[in-house]
């Protein structure tokens, strides 16, 4: 499935809920399902700064050149948010990730309904994901 298709699926899914409390309840469920980072990566090195809660993000390249993300946070709503990002972007090539528009974040209202502090957290998460993508892209170019 392309990133765009996954984004669409997430948008559809959130459309089921009218009320923000229900959307949050869903986000919390998703948070609980987050592919958890290996405990050994829950160190300062993998901590994303700029969030009100602590978020750790780890990335590795699989054999097909696709990036696999795992993450964790001490706040479950934050886990829900990063789990959405991972669902959309994990398992894709660096280029695909860097090209992704991530319009779904606006469409499901995540940006609008999150305070700038939290939006900043979101921005920091996205930045960190793109940072990994760029790093892997560079690495593979150097190898060639």
């Amino acid at each position, binding site marked *: 499935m392309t990133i765009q298709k996954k984004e669409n699926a997430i948008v559809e899914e959130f459309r089921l809920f009218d009320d923000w409390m229900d959307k*949050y*309840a869903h986000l*919390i469920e998703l948070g609980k399902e987050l592919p958890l980072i290996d405990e050994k990566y829950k160190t300062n090195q993998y901590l994303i700064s700029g969030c009100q*809660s602590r978020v750790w993000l780890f990335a590795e390249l699989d054999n097909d050149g696709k990036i696999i993300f795992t993450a964790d946070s001490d*706040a*479950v709503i934050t886990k829900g948010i990063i789990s959405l990002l991972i669902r959309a972007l994990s398992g894709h090539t660096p280029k695909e990730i860097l090209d992704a528009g991530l319009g779904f974040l606006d469409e499901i209202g995540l940006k609008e309904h999150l305070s700038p502090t939290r939006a900043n957290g979101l921005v920091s998460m996205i930045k960190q994901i793109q940072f990994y993508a760029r790093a892997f892209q560079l690495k593979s170019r150097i190898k060639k």
Partner: protein
Amino acid sequence: MLDINQIRNDFPILQQTVNGKPLVYFDNAATTQKPMQVIDRMSRYYKNENSNVHRGVHYLSQVATEAYEASRTYIANYIHASDPSEIVFTRGTTESINLVASVFESFIKEEDEIVITSMEHHSNLVPWQQLCFRTGARLVVVKASVDGELDTREFEKALNDKTRLVAIAHISNVLGTINPVKEITRLAHAAGSVVVIDGAQAIAHLPVNVADIDCEFYAFSGHKTYAPMGIGVLYGKKKWLEKLSPYQYGGEMIESVRFDKTIFNSLPYKFEAGTPNVAGALGLEEAMRYIAGFGVDEIKQYEDKLMDYATGELKKLEGMQIIGTAKQKAAVISFVIEGIHAYDLGTLLDKMGVALRTGNHCAQPLVESYGLTSTVRISLAMYNTLEEIDIFMGALQKAVSMLR
């Protein structure tokens, strides 16, 4: 008895709904809302009186200057300063404290000590820490008990003939503790030290009497006491303000200038460089008149009732840990709930119309001393009600059930 409905009518923002729910504003320690009287005072100033102050010969300049100086006098009386020239207008508490920390540098030597407490807001911590870094002086931290109380005996132990300055919050913005500032000032004076009090959280909630406390400096912000942003006060004993060098240079703080020499103006102008925030000062006076109209003691009594009720209700929740259980508290309750992140609670409560704060509340060392990175904090004001506490408790229970 306060007529809270009437008071609430004075605050336009309280009529708002947030996310379709009536706004419950429990973030008053961050900033209070403003009554129409204060908002109108500023508009009226800009519509009828606006001018630069002090140097003009013309009518508007006279009107603005008189209004500005009358505000200074009102505020001086309000906090029982001995003279209006002891009131320096600043941007807020942070600037007031930074001003003292900066100009006090010439009185600090390498062997000296500066005493603060473990419950200080960063604004009453980092300026002193950096002053110590610059001068080589030692920063001595008096630790609060687990309850969030300061033991005056601990203070006595921390004080000695090297102590030059004691800086302490009147009320902790995290724990709500009302500190025994008068007693601490007495002890500090006995050790030959000067005392700076951070009154940011006290000014809206307690009668403040600098003559009775006898501190050398007292700092507070307008915006935390129903007044506008961008205005605050540094009270300083005349004797000390006179001894200190200016902080910023230019405008009214200058008596005469040659390229090789400048003579500074008298107090309080020496510390007010550049065009002051006249509208802000007038707004602050208006806010203090508004409070005085009800009586700070009346307000304190009412807020205590809110505090007792909220504390009692919170304690009923499973896993509830109230951070700060001092005997003397005002307006602030911090808590955490076992297994639930403060940020998650804050987010969901916001969606249910309750505005409160989560995080370290700019007092990171204090929050970390409880092994935490974050607390949930509700902070009350005179316009809050028992019903709002019920709404908050309902929302909190719902949030907890979603997150467990």
